[in-house]
C-alpha cells in the first residue's frame, strides 16, 4: 500500500469515493476471468476428477453439442415460454393487489399477514399439490413459477407504492381529482420506476425457480435437462445448464434495466 493515499492503489480504497469508470468496469471482468482461470488450472492440472468438476473446455463442448443438435434452442424456448407465462400471470395479479395494499389500509390489513406467511412456504413442497391441481402439463410448471414469484412481488409492489411522496396525493386532492384519478394518474406513474425495478428483480427470481418447476413430469426445458443429467452424472451438462440459466437471468435483468432507462427518462435515479 502506498504511503500517500492520493496515489497508487490506496486511491481505489477511499470510503465512498468515485474511481475511474474504466477501472470500475475492468474490476467486474477481472474477478470472473480469474475464477475461470482458477477453474481451468485446477482441471488441467488434474487436481479434481472430471466427474466432480469438468474442465471449462468440456462444458463449452457440451454447450456446442446442445446447440448443434438443436436441444438448446428447443429447451430454451420451452423454458422461456414457461417463465414468461408464469411471471406475467404473477405480475398481472400482483400489480393490482400490491397497489391496493399500498393505498388502502383495510386491504393491507386483510392480505398482508396471509401473503407474508405464504411467501415463506417452500415452493418445492407444493409440487405434489400443484400436480394434483394442475396436472403434469405446462400449467403445473407455470403454477410453480407463479407461486414462487407472486407473493414476494405483491409485497414489493406495495412498498413501491407506499414509498411515493404522500404530498403528491395531497396535491391531487387539492386539484380536485377523484380517488380513482389520483390512483392511476398520480400514484401509478409516480411508483412506476420502482415497480419496474421490482419487475426486473422478480423475473430474476422466476428464473431461479425454473429447475424447481421442471423437476417433475417434464420432457423438455433447461431445468429438465439439468435434472436428467443428474441421473447420468453428466456434470458437464449440469454445469452448462446452470451457467446458461444464470446467463439468461442476467440478460433479462439487462433488458429491464435498459428499457427502464428509456421509459423513465425523467427519472435521474434510473439513468
Amino acid at each position, binding site marked *: 500500500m502506498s504511503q500517500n493515499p492520493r496515489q497508487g492503489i490506496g486511491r481505489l480504497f477511499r470510503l465512498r469515493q468515485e474511481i475511474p469508470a474504466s477501472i470500475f468496469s475492468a474490476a467486474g471482468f477481472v474477478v470472473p476471468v480469474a475464477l475461470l482461470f482458477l477453474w481451468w488450472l485446477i482441471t488441467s492440472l488434474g487436481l479434481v476428477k472430471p466427474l466432480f468438476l469438468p474442465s471449462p473446455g468440456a462444458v463449452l463442448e457440451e454447450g456446442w453439442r446442445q446447440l448443434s443438435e438443436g436441444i438448446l434452442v428447443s429447451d430454451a424456448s420451452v423454458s422461456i415460454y414457461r417463465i414468461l407465462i408464469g411471471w406475467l400471470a404473477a405480475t398481472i395479479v400482483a400489480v393490482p393487489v400490491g397497489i391496493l395494499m399500498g393505498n388502502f389500509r383495510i386491504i393491507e390489513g386483510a392480505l398482508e399477514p396471509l401473503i407474508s406467511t405464504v411467501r415463506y412456504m417452500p415452493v418445492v413442497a407444493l409440487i405434489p399439490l400443484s400436480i394434483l391441481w394442475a396436472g403434469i402439463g405446462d400449467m403445473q410448471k407455470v403454477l410453480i413459477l407463479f407461486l414462487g414469484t407472486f407473493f414476494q412481488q405483491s409485497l414489493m409492489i406495495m412498498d413501491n407504492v407506499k414509498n411515493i411522496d404522500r404530498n*403528491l396525493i*395531497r*396535491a391531487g*386532492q*387539492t*386539484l380536485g*381529482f377523484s380517488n380513482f384519478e389520483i390512483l392511476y394518474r398520480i400514484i401509478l*406513474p*409516480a411508483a412506476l420506476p420502482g415497480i419496474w425495478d421490482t419487475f426486473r428483480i422478480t423475473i430474476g427470481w422466476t428464473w431461479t425457480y425454473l429447475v424447481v418447476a421442471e423437476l417433475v413430469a417434464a420432457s423438455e426445458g433447461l431445468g429438465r435437462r439439468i435434472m436428467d443429467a443428474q441421473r447420468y452424472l453428466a456434470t458437464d451438462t449440469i454445469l452448462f445448464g446452470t451457467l446458461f440459466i444464470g446467463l439468461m437471468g442476467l440478460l433479462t435483468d439487462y433488458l429491464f434495466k435498459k428499457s427502464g432507462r428509456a421509459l423513465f427518462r425523467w427519472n435521474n435515479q434510473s439513468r
Partner: protein
Amino acid sequence: MSTELKTKVAIDGVGKVFQVDGSPVTAIERVDLDIRENEFVSIVGTSGCGKSTLLNIVGGLDEPTSGEIRIDGARVTGPGRNRGFVFQSYSLFEWMTVKGNIRFALEKSTLGKAEKEELVRHFIQAVGLSGFENAYPQQLSGGMRQRVAIARALVYKPSILLMDEPFGALDAQTRGMMQELLLKVWEDHKVTVLFVTHDVDEAIFLADRVIVLASRPGKVKKDLTIKLPRPRSFELVTDPQFTVYKREILTDIREETLKVMALDRK
C-alpha cells in the same frame, strides 16, 4: 398592510387530537383565528407545535377533532380548488414537464384550451421559468422546482394559498430570492396566504401578521400585526422596527422551546 376587512378564513375553536400507539396526543388544543381577504399571514412556532397540522386542516387534508374552519362563510369539509397548496418537498409530478405540471392543475377547470394555455404561459412567466417549459423537475434546482410548485398552486386561481415551509429546503441565498418573488406574485395576483415557517426573519419579512403558536398543545400565543411598508425588499431586515418584531417573536419562541425541553425532561 391589508386594508380590506372581510373575513376570508375563520378558524373557529379548532383542535386536533391524534392517536399515537393507542393513546391520544393533543397536537392543537384550540385555535381561534380570523384571516382577512388578501392578507398574508405567517405562522411560526417550535417544531411539533401543530402549525403544519393546522395548515392541513385549513386545506381540508386533515379533519379537526373539534371546532371548524369556514372559508367565505362555508364550512370546510375537504380539499377544494379554492385553495392551493405548496409543500416543502416540492411534490411535483416528476414524469411531467414544467408545463405539464402546471397544465395538469387546470385539468378540472372548465376554461377553454386557449385560455388554459394562456394561463399556463402567464404563470410560467410570473415565476420566472420562461425557457424551462419543457424541462423535467429533476433537471431543475430546488428553487426552480418550488417555483413550478407555486405556479401550479396558483394557476387555477384559488383564493387562498397554503404554504407549508415552502423554502425550508433551500439555501439562504435562494430562499431570499424566492421570498421576494413570492411577494411580487402575491402583490400581482391578489390571494390570501397562510405561510407556515420556523424562520422568524422570513415570517416577518413576508407577512401582514405573524401568528406565534404555543407548543404542546398548540394554541395561539401571539397575534402580531407587522406594520412595515410594502413593497418590501431585502434591506427591510435591517430596519429597526423589523428588529423590534424579531426580538418579540424570538422571545416568545424561546419561552416555548424552554417549556418543551422541560416537558421532555420529565
